[in-house]
């Protein structure tokens, strides 16, 4: 909360500004300024826009953000897609500047549920692995924070195992992931940034949640409910979260924070379009490369091209997967079984190794 203001004063300012949100005591509102800052952790680097550049870019395109995107619905929320919730539970980064790890991991976890078509999929990835094992080579630390590019690259190039492999605790520590982390790791096929407002809404409403970062002002720590707009207080720092939806009628993004359920709307918040740099650029997870069994799925399509041992199968709930190409008989045996499953409309159990089909049962 801004210094020298109590909640009543802050709410008076919010009402005076017609800002549309309510302040009150939260799990972080009464922490010291230093402890509040430790709940953030985004420090743009590696060519990413500065916080100030994000603020200016978001404000400059506010009118295009407010316009409805052609082809995208007027509102969308991954917590309620035909009654199904594809957003994993709220986490708490505690007093460590690891928001980048939580903001990216939330997007990857939702992408897994969406790609598998299974909102009940039990997925909880290890933010500690991303931050304390992959992060240090690019400067990640509880006190110094991190930035988005190496986090997304970490998911693409190294992979992150499940939470039980390296449970998160909120203090600086050495990498202590489990011995078999590689066989438990989830990788993504790729990532990219999206800046165009219509493209952001289209991605959100068709592909999945996006990671984003913005400037946190001191009044944000006292956010209880409503559509946040900065009213009072100076800059506390940069922060990354996961954007899970939007509303054109209300003019806001719906976001998943990592400050536990005692803050905001049970851990979530709404922030106005163009506010605090939230929609300058967002980060999209393109797909999930998984190692392990994908059971009871279907072969929807097949693809090949005039190249040696290059054929792919489109699996229900997973998308395109390359067929192992180690030698001719491996390639053709697997391709023939996938074709047979498609011909007979039979269910299949498929073992993927980083997204490559290496074993199949046709049932």
């Amino acid at each position: 909360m801004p210094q020298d203001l109590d909640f009543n004063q802050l709410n008076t300012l919010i009402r005076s500004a017609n800002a549309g949100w309510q302040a009150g005591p939260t799990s972080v509102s009464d922490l010291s300024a230093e402890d509040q800052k430790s709940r953030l952790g985004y420090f743009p680097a590696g060519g990413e826009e500065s916080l100030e550049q994000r603020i200016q870019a978001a404000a400059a395109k506010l009118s295009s953000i407010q316009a409805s995107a052609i082809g995208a619905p007027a509102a969308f929320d991954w917590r309620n897609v035909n009654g199904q919730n594809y957003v994993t539970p709220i986490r708490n980064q505690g007093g460590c500047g690891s928001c980048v790890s939580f903001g990216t991991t939330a997007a990857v976890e939702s992408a897994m549920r969406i790609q598998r078509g299974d909102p009940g999929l039990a997925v909880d990835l290890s933010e500690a692995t991303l931050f304390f094992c992959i992060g240090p080579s690019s400067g990640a630390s509880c006190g110094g924070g991190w930035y988005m590019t190496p986090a997304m690259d970490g998911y693409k190039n190294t992979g992150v195992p499940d939470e039980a492999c390296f449970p998160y605790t909120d203090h600086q520590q050495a990498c202590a992931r489990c011995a078999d982390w590689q066989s438990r790791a989830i990788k993504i096929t790729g990532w990219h940034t999206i800046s165009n407002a219509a493209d952001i809404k289209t991605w959100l409403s068709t592909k999945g949640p996006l990671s984003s970062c913005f400037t946190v002002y001191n009044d944000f720590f006292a956010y209880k409910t409503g559509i946040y707009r900065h009213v009072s207080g100076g800059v506390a720092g940069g922060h990354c979260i996961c954007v899970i939806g939007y509303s054109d009628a209300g003019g806001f993004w719906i976001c998943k924070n990592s400050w536990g359920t005692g803050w905001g709307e049970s851990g979530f918040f709404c922030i106005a379009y163009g506010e605090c740099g939230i929609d300058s650029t967002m980060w999209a997870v393109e797909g999930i490369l998984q190692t392990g069994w994908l059971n009871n799925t279907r072969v929807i399509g097949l693809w090949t091209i005039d190249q040696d041992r290059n054929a792919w199968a489109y699996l229900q709930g997973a998308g395109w997967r390359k067929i192992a190409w180690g030698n001719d008989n491996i390639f053709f045996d697997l391709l023939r079984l996938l074709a047979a499953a498609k011909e007979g409309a039979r269910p299949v159990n498929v073992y993927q190794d980083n997204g490559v089909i290496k074993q199949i049962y046709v049932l």
Partner: protein
Amino acid sequence: MPDTKPQQDLLSSVSTAGAGEGGAAAPTAEPPTSAEGGAIGAVGASVWVNNKKINALWSINENRNSWVGVAGVGWVKLANNSDTAIVAFTILGANARQTQGNVNYRQESDNMMHEMYVW
């Protein structure tokens, strides 16, 4: 490469597409929706022929010589630049013949099929 062609006509539409002698890519298309109609789109020398059915298959005891009959088009030769590619094409063609699923394919200036989706 052998240039023997299938001799049998395909239904009433016989327009056998003559085929000359003849970094790992990945598919980009999503499964079609029922609203998508048939279309032919050209990019340079490449032509995409979409939403077709395979109604016949042909092969012969010659090296890398396999063809598919495309409804409304005629016989189209499968790319013959690689053993594994032509066998993969043949498997997909057979699958399309059996399931009567929609096929999208890319035909090059050599009139052979160089890329194929079967849905």
